[in-house]
């Protein structure tokens, strides 16, 4: 089958903050850039980020990047790569100032500088008093950033392919990445985009879990494309459960609520975080707070008819502060609960939120894979940034405010490296004639007619299994059951049939392709989780309650072809400063 072709210097898949930050840098450097996104760019999930972006600006309290680095390493439960973390924390202030120059409407202090709020896991002076490091545009920071980045890209005349779905990457026989096959959702026409460099910026996979804070589009598309291209996924067992999703519904209630002075209470009206984190209390790291809530609920101190959640109180802050600092939260709570947070507490529970693992990269955004038994090597032409990537700055647990930072810093870092790469690789490599075949086969499969299972059915079952078998607290037995069930479910994928074969804006087919992606990412997640026999960050095992740095201070790598997990060392050496060695983690 003959497919239309287009050539660009760089193909960026995903138009959230990471993809758009990279695109802006590349367009400004006169590279010929294509951004492919399955939704119009401003609908990408970056839009939903609320609380803010971390940078040691010291606008409110003393701060420096080295303290930020310490907090991030500690927050990661020492699984983060310290060279990447140093790079990110050093680059953070510049990344935020750039945003301000792009037009982001940050909230302001009286002296006109950017407003910064307290967030969880932040400290001054390497574990001292609470820091105020999170730069905020009210509680709509992601929206403000995404809009400004898109606007700047319009100015820079970046070439957008809106509502195009990426099917598969194209690789030649030497292992060079040459672009991707994408589909125009509006009419199902295929396009082969040849590119000297390809950046995956496709975001996370929150739809793995039934109750999640994520948009319906967060289906791990880039991660699954990487898996199918023979690239392993790193640290997939680490999935963040945000402490405060609206109970039973999942909408995110920003950590900013606690940053502004809100706190959690159990059924007895007790401020229980005091027992779990005597110093930081409600502003301990997310893994700590989520476990505390789950423990309160398990021990019978949950609230409500089913005793399945706790309450987040802000009414003591006064209506003015609440409405001014947290307008988006107020809107959301009014809409979904019919209450005003300034008057009544918000029912919350730990909710699947963020994929810490992903496509392994170095701090230049290059995708790196292990060679047989030797060292790692970049996949030529392939980059990844943001939630789909694992660089790894978040390790076993991400700090609030570090995800927006991650996409900005590493979107830009990848673009920097791409500019250099383009200087040295001036011409497109020839695309093999069979390069598009895997993508075509993938699509042809969904043309099968007849009776079968439905996409909706399997997707619902998958999310249920993941929630029950790979949640906040884990055991060997439960996860083995989960792996068996997901494996069986993935075996049933062959029986799924579409009834809608229309060429016009076929969302049923898109959902089928997304389900394939989710299934691969689910297998990676539960297989990696089962293998890791310790508790670290977001991966809490009842049967292995301690962190084990002797055996498990290492990254996992899940391979799709063999469905096996192997490991690589953590990069504990920063770029210029001393390493932060693993210590007991108390907040």
């Amino acid at each position, binding site marked *: 089958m003959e497919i239309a072709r287009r050539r660009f210097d760089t193909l960026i898949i995903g138009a959230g903050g990471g993809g758009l930050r990279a695109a802006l840098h590349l367009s400004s450097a006169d590279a010929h850039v294509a951004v492919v996104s399955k*939704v119009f760019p*401003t609908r990408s999930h970056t839009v939903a980020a609320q609380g803010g972006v971390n940078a040691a600006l010291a606008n409110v309290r003393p701060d420096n990047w080295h303290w930020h680095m310490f907090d991030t390493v500690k927050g990661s439960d020492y699984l983060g790569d310290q060279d990447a973390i140093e790079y990110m924390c050093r680059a953070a202030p510049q990344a935020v100032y750039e945003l301000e120059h*792009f*037009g982001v409407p940050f909230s302001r202090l009286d002296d006109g*500088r950017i407003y910064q709020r307290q967030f969880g896991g932040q400290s001054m002076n390497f574990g001292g008093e609470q820091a105020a490091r999170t730069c905020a545009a009210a509680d*709509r920071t992601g929206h403000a950033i995404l809009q*400004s980045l898109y606007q700047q890209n319009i100015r820079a005349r970046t070439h957008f392919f809106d509502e195009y779905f990426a099917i598969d990457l194209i690789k030649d026989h030497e292992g060079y990445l040459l672009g991707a096959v994408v589909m125009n959702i509006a009419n199902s026409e295929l396009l082969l985009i040849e590119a000297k460099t390809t950046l995956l910026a496709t975001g996370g996979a929150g739809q793995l879990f039934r109750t999640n804070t994520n948009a319906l589009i967060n289906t791990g598309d880039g991660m699954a494309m990487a898996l199918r291209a023979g690239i392993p996924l790193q640290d997939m067992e680490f999935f963040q459960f945000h402490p405060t999703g609206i109970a039973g*519904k999942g909408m995110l209630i920003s950590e900013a609520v606690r940053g502004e002075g809100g706190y959690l209470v159990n059924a007895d009206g007790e401020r229980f975080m005091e027992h779990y984190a005597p110093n930081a209390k409600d502003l301990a790291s997310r893994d700590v707070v989520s476990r505390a809530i789950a423990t309160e609920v398990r021990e019978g101190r949950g609230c409500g008819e089913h005793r399945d959640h706790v309450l987040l109180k802000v009414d003591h802050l006064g209506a003015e502060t609440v409405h001014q600092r947290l307008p988006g939260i107020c*809107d959301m709570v009014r809409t979904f609960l019919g209450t005003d947070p300034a008057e009544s507490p918000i029912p919350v529970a730990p909710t699947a939120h963020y994929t810490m693992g992903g496509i392994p990269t170095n701090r230049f955004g290059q995708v790196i894979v292990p060679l047989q038994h030797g060292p790692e090597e970049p996949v030529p032409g392939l980059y990844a940034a943001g939630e789909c990537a694992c660089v790894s700055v978040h390790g076993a647990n991400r700090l609030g405010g570090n995800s927006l930072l991650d996409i900005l810093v590493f979107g830009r870092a990848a673009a920097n490296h791409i500019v250099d790469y383009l200087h040295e690789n001036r011409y497109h490599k020839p695309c093999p004639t069979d390069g598009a075949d895997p993508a075509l086969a993938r699509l042809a499969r969904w043309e099968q007619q007849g009776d079968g299972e439905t996409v909706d059915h399997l997707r619902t079952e998958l999310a249920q299994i993941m929630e029950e078998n790979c949640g906040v607290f884990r055991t060997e037995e439960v996860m083995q059951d989960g792996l068996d069930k997901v494996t069986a479910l993935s075996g049933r994928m062959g029986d799924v049939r579409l009834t809608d074969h*229309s060429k016009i804006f076929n969302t049923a087919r898109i959902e089928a392709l997304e389900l394939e992606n989710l299934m691969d990412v689910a297998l990676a997640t539960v297989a990696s989780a089962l293998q890791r026999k310790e508790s670290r960050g977001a991966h809490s095992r009842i049967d292995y309650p301690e962190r084990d740095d002797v055996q498990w201070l290492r990254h996992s790598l899940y391979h799709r072809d063999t469905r096996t997990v192997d490991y690589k060392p953590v990069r504990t050496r920063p770029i210029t400063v001393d390493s932060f060695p693993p210590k007991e983690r108390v907040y």
Partner: protein
Amino acid sequence: MKFSIYRYNPDTDTAPAMQAMELDDNQVTPGMMLLDALLLLKAQDESLSFRRSCGEGVCGSDGMNINGRNGLACITPLAALKTPVAVRPLPGLPVVRDLIVDLEQFYQQYRAVNPWLINKDPVPEVERRQTPEQRAQLDGLYECILCACCSTACPSFWWNPDKFLGPAALLQSWRFLADSRDQATDERLANLEGPFKLFRCHTIMNCVEVCPKGLNPTRAIGRIKELMVKRSM
């Protein structure tokens, strides 16, 4: 619960038609939003097509016409809707399929107002200062999610979609005119001159009525007009 949903697939249908669809009472739970219902209806018939993403009113994907009024399906409570709930695509734009409209014209209007900050000074090493009062001028403007509910509710937009910029784009224009950091006031105003781009707004205020974020494009348009008058004196 009964629904009446606009269906049209140009691949197979000669003309659009309203289709009756129904959910069992036990599928309808308290607090459910219209989007939840549409997702359940799509589980019955996967060919039902609509855009959706965040499910909480921040991405702007699922603007549609609900019982005659534009809104976001994900933050429209089912309990408040008269049945059968009539769901149609946003009016005034070409329908691609079912509830999906072609938004290209809407996006063109957005791009036409140069919706980015223009500041001609050398870039400082740190942030540009802005007082909380100056920043407060942007409240009610920067929150726009480009859902197109307002522009497609506007008769002036229906009549002159190629000449009038519509409430969403004009709200964006004012968002930058109102920004103390922006230095392109003259160019922005010059760009809006003429009888159509701005002045086709007849303050019908449908835009204010339907905005799911509670924004007020009519007021923004009024402010642009005031500024234009002030500048010309």
